């Protein structure tokens, strides 16, 4: 299993890397949506999971989700928004653009793992 963490905050990238890393994911990261698309374009295999912040410079999370959904190659990648944007309108926009789940910061490790489990992305026997 492979995940990509997309967040302009290095601190948040480290937290998310730690959580999904503990679940057994190989983890890549990028600091904005544009950098993530560039990174993904160079990967031989597409990650199973992308954890995507909303507010980032260059290309924000909603733009990344939209671009990923329009890319046939990235079609099977599960997209989870991880953001402080908690208004209902934002959640609706993200899900309408193609995000599979929405996690609001601050979140606990348990809450994140629970969301991933609902998506079938917690490997059996993972350290949760």
């Amino acid at each position: 299993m492979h995940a990509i963490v997309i967040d302009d905050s290095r601190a948040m990238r480290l937290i998310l890397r730690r959580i999904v890393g503990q679940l057994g994911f190989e983890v890549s990261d990028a600091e904005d949506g544009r950098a993530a698309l560039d990174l993904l374009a160079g990967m031989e295999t597409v990650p199973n999971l992308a954890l995507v912040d909303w507010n980032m410079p260059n290309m924000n999370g909603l733009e990344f989700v939209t671009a990923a959904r329009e890319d046939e190659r990235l079609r099977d990648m599960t997209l989870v928004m991880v953001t402080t944007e908690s208004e209902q309108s934002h959640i609706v926009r993200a899900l309408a653009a193609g995000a599979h789940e929405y996690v609001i910061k601050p979140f606990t490790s348990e809450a994140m793992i629970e969301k991933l489990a609902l998506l079938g992305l917690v490997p059996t026997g993972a350290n949760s």
Partner: protein
Amino acid sequence: MSENTPTIDDLREIADQVWSAYLDPEGVRPFELGEPKQPATAVSASVSLTGAWHGHVVVTCSSEAARHAAAAFLAMGTEEVGDEDITDVMGELANIVGGNVKSMLPPATLVSLPHVVNGASNRFPTTRQICELAGTWLDEPFSISMWQGRDAGVVAA
């Protein structure tokens, strides 16, 4: 003050969530409310809110508290924490608090990227402090405050 403006209780609720998630997940090192204190050496992180509401959200603490926050957030020992870790974590704390405050403000309010400085960054021209959650964490001064623009306030969205 607008009836949409967050209160100290709102800040307390956000702080509780931040501590539970990142700074005190075990529930053994809580944020203790108390009188505001000026730390001898401080780190301040802020985000600005613009658009339908104008102001700032500021997280200020002692340098020692900032080091502990970085260690807790990044799951490392305090002796391993570097200046970049402190800057990143304090910025992210301001971003999380500011983002959650934004959700209580009028639609079309925007939140900036965080700004982190050494020192108590409580000088925002043409603003007034509208609430402050102050106290200590690990016996070190820690506060979260909101500042509203004097002239701008809430404008038509």
